[in-house]
Structures are given as structure tokens and as C-alpha cells.
């Protein structure tokens, strides 16, 4: 299978043009990689912020638990 594949594919003349072609494709992949890295940094920041908010909500929940129960038991 691999032998047949190699037989049909064109030879890749990497002598002079190779570095330019490699450069062009590396530019594209580097840009995508940089973007993914930026997204990863943003995601970790959002995760940290969500953790802080969860802590804040838990603290608020502990403080407001008693009045909330009282409110629920009161008929409208």
C-alpha cells in the first residue's frame, strides 16, 4: 500500500523551492498555533474567573440561605 502510494505521488524536489514552500506553509500553521495559544490563555483566564465566581456564589449562598428558606415558605 505504502509502496504503491509512493510510486504514484510526484517526487518532491526540495532543492531550492522547498524552503520557500515550507516557509509559506509554516507561516499558516504558526498563525493558527499562535491563535490557539491565545485562546488557551483566554480559556484558562475564564476558568479562573469562573472559579472565583463560584466561590463568591457559595459564600453568598451560605449567607442568604436562611432568608431564602423563609421566603419560600411564605405564601404568595
Amino acid at each position, binding site marked *: 500500500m505504502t509502496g504503491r502510494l509512493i510510486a504514484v505521488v510526484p517526487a*518532491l*524536489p526540495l532543492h531550492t*523551492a522547498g524552503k*520557500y514552500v515550507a*516557509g*509559506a506553509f509554516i507561516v*499558516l500553521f504558526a498563525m493558527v498555533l499562535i491563535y490557539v495559544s491565545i485562546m488557551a490563555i483566554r480559556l484558562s483566564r475564564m476558568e479562573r474567573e469562573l472559579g472565583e*465566581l463560584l466561590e463568591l456564589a457559595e459564600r453568598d449562598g451560605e449567607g442568604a440561605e436562611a432568608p431564602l428558606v423563609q421566603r419560600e415558605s411564605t405564601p404568595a
Partner: protein
Amino acid sequence: MYGKGLRALSISTVAAMTVALGLVFFYAPLEAEQGFLQKIFYVHVPLAIVSLCGFVIGGLLAIQHLRTRDSRWDMRSYVVIHMSLIFALATLITGSIWAKGSWGHWWVWNEPTLVSYLIIFLLYATYQPLRFAIEDPERQARYASVFAITAGAFVPMNFIAVRLSTAYLHPRVLGSTSNLPGSMALTFLVSFGAISLLFATLCKYELTAKHTRSQIRALRRRLAGEPARAPRGRSAAPSPAPTTLAPAGRPAS
């Protein structure tokens, strides 16, 4: 909201990019004149077309913003133009590499396609500073939309003007795909599809990230007992749409 279908889109993009790379290096024949160097064509030209289409789409989204006054359209226009600018930068870099390999120079000033593309790039490079210069979010969105529409109309006009110019040194692609052998045309179309999918995926990621961040901010303000739309500092990014956080005990509509 924006994250819907993101996984399927990401998987499609990776699959399309893999297929495109396979076709470029193992299926498409070597071009008679340029040989292996012509492989840059399969990345450079789709990047250029997608970035130019992105600028036009940004203008159309801006029209929608001015019609509806809905800040979500401004956000979409901003993200599409932002991404198009990144793709345009990639186009300029890959184009320069191709020019160096083909013509022996990184840049040729008497080539209208190159210079006109650079003008479009520089025009859109002023979009972010324009936004940043205006502090009031509503005025910022309105002015940015006007800019996006005007510049978006300039893109096809510029394209036609270059077509009508006399110098034809730059390789022609649109309108001449029928001149390409079948295998090259197929590879080009797959590469174009893959780059388009990459563009759509990155835009969707950006929109999802911005929307999530605005929701987190709204949640923080709500937990702190502050108003839902607090005044923000100077920023080039659009003001997020009013986030519908449901009151405690009631789900969001």
C-alpha cells in the same frame, strides 16, 4: 449560543485541512514553469480570496447593525474583519515568500495586485485604532459600521480596477480555473474550502469566547450587586450585547 455546532465545525476543518494538504503534496502535479514552488498557490490564493470576502462580509454585517441597532451584528462584523486582517497578513507573508522564490524579490512595487492588496490591508489596519479612539460604545459601533461598509465597498471596486489595469504580471486565478488541469483545479477548490472552514471556525471560536467573557462579567457584576451594564473602560472591542441572566430561581429565556 455561539458555541452551537463548534465541535462539528472544528472536526470538519481539521479533516478538510488534512485532505487539502494530502492533495497539495501527493496528488496535484508539479506545474511546468514554477515546479514545486507553485504549491504556495494552494495556500496563498485561498487566503487572499477568503480575507477579501471576509472584508466584504464584515461590511454586510455592519449594514445589518445599522439597520437593526443590535450590537450583536457589530460584534460579528468586528470579529469577521479582525479575522480577515489576520488572514490578510498571512496572505502578504506567503505572497512575499512566493515572490522571492519566483521573481527573486520579496516585494515588487510595479505589480498592481500586490500594491492594491497592501492598500486594502493598510486601510483595514486603521479599523482597530478607529474603534479604540472612540470611547462611547454606541458611537464607536456606529462609526465602525460606517467604516466597514465604505471599506467593504472599496474591496470589489479595487479588485475590478486591478483587473482592468494593463499589467498582467501577477498570476490570474478567478475566471481562469478552467485553464487549470482537473487535478490542480480540484486541489485548489479543496484548499479553498479548507481555508474557508478555518476562517469560519476561528470566527466562531472568537465569537464564543467574547460572548462567554461578557456573560462572566455580567455574572460577576450581578453577584457584586452592581448594575448589569456597568460603564467600561476604553476598548477597541465592541460593547457586548445585553446579557440575559435570569433572576435567581428562574431560567433564562
